[in-house]
């Protein structure tokens, strides 16, 4: 009797509890033990270059004491787990991960300072193209069309945006053009996937290769010859939402951005509502999970897929516009640098949901900007290793934390009507 109940107890209570203890010890040993009690870390909480905003004092923390507190958080969680059991293991993992990252930051910033607000705000900006690419993936794959050509769509629409923007002198026209061109490439992919039932990976790869060749060609033949006439569009101004942007810390991060960042955040919400609370969303998911059943019930499978892939292309088009008219105002060859593929990873990590994909993109954005700050702080870790940070995060997250992510059942399978 005692033996039979002990085993599940060990497995469900004791082992995770001990692991949490271990995490607490690791946090202290790595980041707390080598630090002197007097050392302090300073985190800037005010945005740079703006003095009229509400100034709050920077956050100065004693490193060793804070790390001790953080490691105690993990130990406390472990004790709680052993005594009472924690229902949400995700919460425990999340808290420990937070304690680990926070302790790491404290350790890296000892006797130094960096702008926390700046890092958070660049996390969001860096996450923008990734999130848009991920949303494109979500909406297409929910209708069971794999779109691996997102990277290509980003490139083509980035170039379209800068050319139209420079020629017309109106960035909004450029934005619409980029979205339309994104939709056009999406339509091509949909045609291949739905009508011709091509292997969707092949079609997506073709789009990527074509995009690199075509944009590089246009760039070297035309844009380079006439930079001011074709490749100098300027960028969207930063919009400060009145009042909201004055909130300390969160205000400058969330409410002082350019239009593409705002559109991205709105799209995340809209797409969530559409996918899960409208008839259209229900049909889309049905087409993705079991197209035959949907067809039997009178849902037009082909039309649904066309529309979703084209809409996805338009979202990716918006993402492409970010690179040029949203960021640097000019096009350079292969400037998207693989963000479309990271977007696909974010989509999987986010389990094919808009909010999940957004959160995953934020994580990549955070890893990206954290890496820059760490390099600036000059911590004794080689820069090459720090540059791997976003990708290590991807792998750890995909392999460990997420568990088995479930793709839509019919994902990537062409629908044959018979």
């Amino acid at each position: 009797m005692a033996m039979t109940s002990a085993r599940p107890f060990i497995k469900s209570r004791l082992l995770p509890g001990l692991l949490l203890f271990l995490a607490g010890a690791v946090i202290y040993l790595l980041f707390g033990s080598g630090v002197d009690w007097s050392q302090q870390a300073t985190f800037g909480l005010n945005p740079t270059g703006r003095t009229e905003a509400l100034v709050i004092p920077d956050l100065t923390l004693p490193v060793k004491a804070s790390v001790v507190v953080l490691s105690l958080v993990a130990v406390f969680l472990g004790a709680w787990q052993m005594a009472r059991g924690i229902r949400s293991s995700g919460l425990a993992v999340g808290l420990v991960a937070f304690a680990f990252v926070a302790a790491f930051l404290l350790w890296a910033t000892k006797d130094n300072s960096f702008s926390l607000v700046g890092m958070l705000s660049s996390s969001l900006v860096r996450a923008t193209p990734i999130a848009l690419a991920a949303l494109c993936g979500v909406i297409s794959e929910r209708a069971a069309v794999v779109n691996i050509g997102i990277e290509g769509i980003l490139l083509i629409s980035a170039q379209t945006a800068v050319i139209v923007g420079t020629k017309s002198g109106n960035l909004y026209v450029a934005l619409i053009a980029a979205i339309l061109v994104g939709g056009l490439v999406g339509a091509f992919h949909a045609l291949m996937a739905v009508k011709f039932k091509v292997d969707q990976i092949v079609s997506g790869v073709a789009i990527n290769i074509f995009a690199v060749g075509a944009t590089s060609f246009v760039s070297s033949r035309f844009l380079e010859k006439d930079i001011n006439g074709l490749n100098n569009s300027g960028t969207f101004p930063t919009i400060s939402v009145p009042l909201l942007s004055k909130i300390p810390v969160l205000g400058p991060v969330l409410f002082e951005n350019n239009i593409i960042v705002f559109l991205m955040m709105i799209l995340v919400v809209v797409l969530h509502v559409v996918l899960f609370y409208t008839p259209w969303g229900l049909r889309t998911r049905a087409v993705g999970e079991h197209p035959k059943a949907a067809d039997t019930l009178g849902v037009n499978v082909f039309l649904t897929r066309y529309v979703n892939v084209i809409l996805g292309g338009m979202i990716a088009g918006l993402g492409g516009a970010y690179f040029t008219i949203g960021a640097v105002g000019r096009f350079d060859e292969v400037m998207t640098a693989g963000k479309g593929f990271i977007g696909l990873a974010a989509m999987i990590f986010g389990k094919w949901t808009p909010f999940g994909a957004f959160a995953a993109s934020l994580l990549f954005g955070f890893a990206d900007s954290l890496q820059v700050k760490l390099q600036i702080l000059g911590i004794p870790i080689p820069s090459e290793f720090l540059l791997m940070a976003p990708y290590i995060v991807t792998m750890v997250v995909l392999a460990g934390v997420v568990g088995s992510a479930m793709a839509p059942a019919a994902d990537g399978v062409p629908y044959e009507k018979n």
Partner: protein
Amino acid sequence: MKKLYSIMAVLLAAVLLLSACGPRAVDCSADDVYCVGQVTDLGGIDDKSFNASAWRGVQNALDDDLIASGKYLESQGQSDYARNIQQFLDENTDLIVTVGFLLGVDTAKAATANPNTYFAIVDYSYPDCWPGAVVGTDCGSDVEIPNVRGLTFQTDQAAFLAGYLAAGMTQTGKVGTYGGIQIPPVTIFMDGFQAGVMYYNQQHGANVQLVGWDAATGQGLFTGNFESTDDGRAFAESLMQEGVDIIMPVAGPVGLGSAAVCQETGGCLIIGVDADWYDTAPEYRSVLLTSVLKKIDVAVYDTIQDMVNGQFTGGTAVYTIADGGVDIAPYHDFDNQVPASLKAEIEQLRQQLIDGTLTVNGVLGR
């Protein structure tokens, strides 16, 4: 399905056609017809940086009728290097210019196997092997190769002047730099920049800080690529958040992203590298303090001229501030804002660097 494959085939053909551009071939095997081929590094031919600069040297030679044909092949990945070199060898190209440190091994292999073809490699020289390195894998050659001329640049001398200038011009007391990939042709800029800042501090008893590079520890700020202008934007923003107001990006076109954000916010000034960005990126003139010039075009042109005149020599050609191969560009729009005394100091430093009474390594203490 068949229709589909034909569509794909047409698409692929289009891609191949688009990427294969260049002037029509001439008979390069003839003795008095000189053909030059350039193999680019990953940044592409119009990277505003060393590929573009080397190509300008080839084009100038074409314009002056020194050579009958000048072509380039872009490398999309590191596996393209050897293939692109072979392509030029197959066309009986007389001089193959390979651009960049990363082509070091492939160039040596091709040059050793084809002793009758001339090679010039930018930012590299032989012998390049260190003890224990495997020839052909880790490094190119453990001896000098007679048919290869390595073109190297003492860019730290020019960057020294830029660092001194930046330290004298900063309002916040912090200047910054970042690189593309941590390789010697990149870090040499950052070394010089740091030395310039340090020397300014010594001379003026100032305490200007450099963010983004420390020559003593080899720790610094790197994007890990030479392509993503968005990275350039993010890095500049991050540096500004830490109080930096003058940035020298050593990452080819990535730096243009930094220039864009400086122009947008008015919060920083840029020091260009390789070419004079006043000419190559005129849209950012209003934030361009100066540029650290590395005259690859001149070096390539010299090499072509030597080949045509039958005076090609292998080994290493080092370009320094003394021969004008490296320098800083005029201040252009900032000419009025740089104090006359600072200009005079920089002029004097240039002389000291030329006559050798001042060295970058001396200032860095190594």
